[in-house]
């Protein structure tokens, strides 16, 4: 039940206290430095702007945007889907079945890391998007809009709900390492995606596919964008500022940060003792724990951003979604810190297991002999330093992103003081994240 991630055994050592404290102090000091020394006129576009960038060489741009690449990536995504389905249906019900690694590591962690570096990866390979696309093309429909418009008021709320459903499977549900249960979760996921895609077209995937919402959100921290049919490289902050302020964006932020924090927290001695001593079953405690962490993270952010004073022409209730993009660097950094070794070691191990998909001793990919090197395990100080640097970098990026948006939104007289509530909330998230990396 309490097995971390439903996969893998040994986990990272906690980071040393001195590093955690230095990181938190650095975050605090740098936040106010940003506030005081940063520019006073908005430098990046608003959510609907498409700021420019430096074009990459034309040949590279042509290759990336060519239909062959597009189709190639879709085929790759589809082949992995078929492979995953085969392991889910015909594989053995043990953690050695690569299905678990494919969904918990490659999909959940790998796609996020890849999106951070390369752009919206899941959008490019998503097999459910591919099916929707083919379906609408075959029936002469509109692959993007389907037969009904996606309701604007719904925004990415379904995506937030889907993300919660996934982290619940990963962190709470007893059957997370039972093949039939994980298979059922994904069967329901695919069914919902196909029905939604048939009705709303790919707009549905954009707003309701948890993996696409997540991947596309963190992809805005990559330096790539497409402007006027050309791939450009530009500041991740410029990309981040183009995040659409959809309803539910703050909820996505809450679920992603809250669940990752809960994953850390559930390894702390405090939590283990609390679960042991509680009068209710451990499952109840885990359900409550995850829910409380996600709600608290989402509400803290909503309150922190809503306390920003606004002029008469802006509704206060719109503030969380207009500022939510600034939390993405904090989330991404924390996810990097939390999952780095997990991805490297067990992602590798999954590749080995994928070579024997049905537990019959095969070696179809020639990778069966790969074993994780556990390099980071043997360099714990370096690993801890990387984690803290990532968290502090993410925090500073977040503070800058929030500052740029705040001076766009705030009336002149509140431009500096008005940023304080959100800034304190961010320092709280970062310090909390560091504390969890230290204590769990």
């Amino acid at each position, binding site marked *: *039940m309490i*097995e971390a991630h439903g996969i893998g055994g*040994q986990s990272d050592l906690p980071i040393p206290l001195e590093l955690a404290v230095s990181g938190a102090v650095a975050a605090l000091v740098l936040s106010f430095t940003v506030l005081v020394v940063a520019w006073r006129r908005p430098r990046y576009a608003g959510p609907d702007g498409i700021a420019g960038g430096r074009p990459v060489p034309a040949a590279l741009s042509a290759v990336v945007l060519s239909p062959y690449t597009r189709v190639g990536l879709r085929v790759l995504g589809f082949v992995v889907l078929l492979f995953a389905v085969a392991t889910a249906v015909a594989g053995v019900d043990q953690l050695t079945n690569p299905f678990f690694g494919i969904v918990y590591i490659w999909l959940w962690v790998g796609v996020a890391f890849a999106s951070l570096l390369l752009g919206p990866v899941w959008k490019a390979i998503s097999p459910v998007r591919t099916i929707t696309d083919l379906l609408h093309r075959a029936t002469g429909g509109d692959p993007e809009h389907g037969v009904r418009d996606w309701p604007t008021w719904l925004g990415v709320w379904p995506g937030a709900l889907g993300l919660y459903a996934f982290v619940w499977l990963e962190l709470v549900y007893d059957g997370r390492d039972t093949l039939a249960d994980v298979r059922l979760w994904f069967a329901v996921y695919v069914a919902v995606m196909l029905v939604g895609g048939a009705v709303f077209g790919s707009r549905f995937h954009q707003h309701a596919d948890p993996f696409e919402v997540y991947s596309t959100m963190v992809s805005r921290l990559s330096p790539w964008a497409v402007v006027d049919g050309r791939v450009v490289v530009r500041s991740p902050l410029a990309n981040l500022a183009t995040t659409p302020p959809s309803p539910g964006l703050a909820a996505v932020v809450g679920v992603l940060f809250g669940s990752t924090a809960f994953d850390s927290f559930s390894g702390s001695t405090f939590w283990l003792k609390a679960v042991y001593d509680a009068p209710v079953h451990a499952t109840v405690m885990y359900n409550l724990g995850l829910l409380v962490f996600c709600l608290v993270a989402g509400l803290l952010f909503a309150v922190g951003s809503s306390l920003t004073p606004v002029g008469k022409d802006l509704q206060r209730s719109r503030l969380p979604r207009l500022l939510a993009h600034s939390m993405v660097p904090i989330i991404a950094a924390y996810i990097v810190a939390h999952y780095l070794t997990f991805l490297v070691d067990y992602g590798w191990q999954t590749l080995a297991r994928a070579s024997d998909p049905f537990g019959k001793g095969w070696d179809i990919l020639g990778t069966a002999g790969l074993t994780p090197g556990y390099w980071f395990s043997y360099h714990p100080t370096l690993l801890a330093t990387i984690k803290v640097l990532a968290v502090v970098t993410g925090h500073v990026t977040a503070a800058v992103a929030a500052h740029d948006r705040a001076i766009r939104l705030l009336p002149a007289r509140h431009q500096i003081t008005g940023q304080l509530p959100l800034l304190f909330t961010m320092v709280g998230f970062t310090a909390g994240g560091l504390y969890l990396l230290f204590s769990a």
Partner: protein
Amino acid sequence: MRIVPLHRPSRAASAVACAALLAAGLAACGGSDGGGGSGSDKDPVTVEVTFKDGEVTPSGDRVELAVGQELDLEVTADEPGTIHVHSDPEQELEYPQGTKTFTLDFDRPGQIEVESHDLDVVIAQLEVR
């Protein structure tokens, strides 16, 4: 949990644990003298685990270990069961009714959970440095 230095390691238990470790593909076993010889000259750490009436002590304690340092899990139980050690590869320690000592050591730094799956409880978290 009480952590006491162990004076006389149980040879039989070491042998059993060694066999289990070797079977699991982990080659880092103590020498035949039951102590030392495995990369750390620190005294073994003993953790007393007690299963009684469906409860277990300790629950969730941290235990600090050096790489190669021996851990003696002294299990006293009122009925037989299995302890899960979440190292890589995982290890299963089957204990009988009565008392049995398992000797383990770990050659890779990290955090390792020792669990009872029967009771759904983390008994201890080993911090191997």
